[in-house]
């Protein structure tokens, strides 16, 4: 152990300047935000007290959390199916699927959001077809409401769900599944009792990733929600840019930060987080 420690030392020295940079330019501004939340407009906890006074803030937070949970659930569900399909395809098909998946990262979120309007809007492709065939008499309202926001967000998040799951599934030892079948378990039993538990780190990793990314969503809810689905990120931006209530904005940002940290802490009670982030289980 002592030799190991000796070997680490020069390494740490190399890392130290970068660590200092991170502390200075990353933690510095975050502390600044935290400070702002207790000093603007007046010193004290007035900004945090607003949480109790205003049911509007509570409603905005509840909308945000609700949308994030639903988005996470469906993205991971669909992502899991895609990753499962990919792992069990031929190498050639798998690389084709991976390419298609990565292509979606190149398309700007604005373009994707407006594409949904063209597809599912009142005079979009789907509604025009349904109206034309006489299946519906009024256009179905897919967009400009919470359903629209969810469709847009889930679609955006699926690739993020697939990648951690794919890595996790690729690293599984398939002999375990074979052994299970050999011992008489059915395919379904093997999936539920062996495969699914083994992919738990992947599920947790992609759920965390998606939940945290969803919390910061701004463009999609603003456009597809028709102005009626207000999430925290947009509210923060309005407080910063339009109403100049930087204290409120900082308070909400701090709240989101601590919310995410609390979530990680909670997860760590149930499982080793290092496995989620690709570390060893030992």
């Amino acid at each position, binding site marked *: 152990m002592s030799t190991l420690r000796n070997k680490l030392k020069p390494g740490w020295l190399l890392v130290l300047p970068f660590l200092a940079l991170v502390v200075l330019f990353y933690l510095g501004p975050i502390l600044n935000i935290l400070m702002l939340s207790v000093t603007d407009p007046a010193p004290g906890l007035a900004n945090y007290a607003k949480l109790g006074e*205003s049911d*509007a803030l509570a*409603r*905005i937070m509840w*909308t945000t959390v609700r949308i994030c949970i639903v988005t996470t659930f469906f993205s991971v569900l669909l992502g899991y199916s895609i990753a499962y399909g990919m792992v069990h395809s031929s190498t050639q098909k798998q690389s084709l699927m991976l390419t298609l998946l990565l292509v979606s990262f190149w398309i700007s979120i604005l373009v994707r959001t407006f594409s949904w*309007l063209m597809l599912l*809007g*009142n*005079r979009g492709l789907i509604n025009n077809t349904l109206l034309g065939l006489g299946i519906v008499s009024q256009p179905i309202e897919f967009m*400009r409401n919470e359903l629209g926001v969810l469709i847009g967000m889930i679609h955006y998040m699926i690739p993020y769900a697939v990648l951690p799951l794919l890595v996790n599934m690729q690293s599984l030892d398939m002999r375990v599944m074979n052994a299970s079948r050999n011992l008489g378990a059915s395919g379904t039993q093997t999936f539920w009792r062996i495969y699914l538990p083994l992919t738990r780190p992947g599920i947790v990793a992609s759920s965390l990733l998606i939940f945290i990314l969803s919390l910061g969503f701004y463009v999609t809810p*603003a*456009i597809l929600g*028709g*102005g*009626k*689905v*207000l999430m925290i990120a947009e*509210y923060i931006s*309005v*407080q*910063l*840019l*339009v*109403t*100049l*209530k*930087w204290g409120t904005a900082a308070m909400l940002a701090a709240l989101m930060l601590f919310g995410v940290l609390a979530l990680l802490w909670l997860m760590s009670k149930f499982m080793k987080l290092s496995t989620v982030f690709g570390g060893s289980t030992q």
Partner: protein
Amino acid sequence: MQDKNFLRETLQDGAKAFQDGKLDRRSFLALCAATGFASATVLAGKAEAAAKEIVMWNWGGQSEECHGNAIGKPFEAATGLPMRFDTSGPLQGKIKEMVDSGNVTADVCDADLFDAIALGPTGHLEAIDYDVVSKDKTLPNYALDHGISIILYGYAFVYDTKAYPTAPNSWKDFFDTAKFPGKRSLYKWANGSLEAALMADGVAKDALYPLDIPRALAKIKAMKSDSLYWGSGSEAHSMVVNGEVSMGMVWQNRGKNIEADTDGRYKLVMNEALAMPGAYIVPKGNPAGREAIMKFIATAQDPAAQLQLLDCLGMTPSNPAAFANIPAEQQAYAITSAQNIDKVAFNDPVWWGNNSGDAVNAFLEAIS
């Protein structure tokens, strides 16, 4: 946008260093090439041009071309200072942040007059120099200490002529979904929407301020299930032309485009439109200096420049000397045309500047 700013700053620093003799000519030209700026503007003796210019901070789009032609060209001819643009949108928070950080890169913001009330007293804006700029070349209440209205824009509405055989003609009709069934769209950052709701509820157009926010919100909430809310002009435009709403609040110059795009199916109603004073405000410590920017603002007061902006952008002149020369084809759309000026309501920038934060939040909380 960050990159663009960075490049411009690099080049400006380089040009200054070149002038001071700290940077040799070859390195300076290399810098021009590296930052991708057309060397024509920076080449040889014109290095000064890159360092001394007027940067207008606006929302981009067509307005770059229009402001450039209407104000930039005559100003450059008179002073030699070219006009450049930062199109990232001068929202109050961004102006405050820019001035607080001490790194001011814009000379003039194409903003709202109520921004002058919100940011002026806190020391974020230069005072307008009324020895250079004229108070008489705008509407009486629209020349403030820290900002002056150059053009007006307005909140009006368009309606679907196919949906309504009898034309709606007021905000009262707009909010009456029993008489005129169908969806509506409103501006989601409160201004215009609150005034429209109050006029619909029977408040006279010259007795709007101070706004009775609870009364306005009650009217807006009553129509919430039939309403969509837009955040940008293009969104307002697409909500209408895509048939998402049968009546939509729009910026009046958008209304003209919508009429053209739909071959007249949607029609603009200017009765009770709310005139908003668009204003020039100057961030404290602007790079070109106060003297140069005041001359620039004075140039923008010229009736010819304002009429050119009307032609190019549909923004209405605020200089009374230009009102009589509004061309016939703009009469129906311009706020200050003889046809419209008595029908519109005028925004009170002082009330908005002092109350916009609370009004916007109350509105957002009511619609979400």
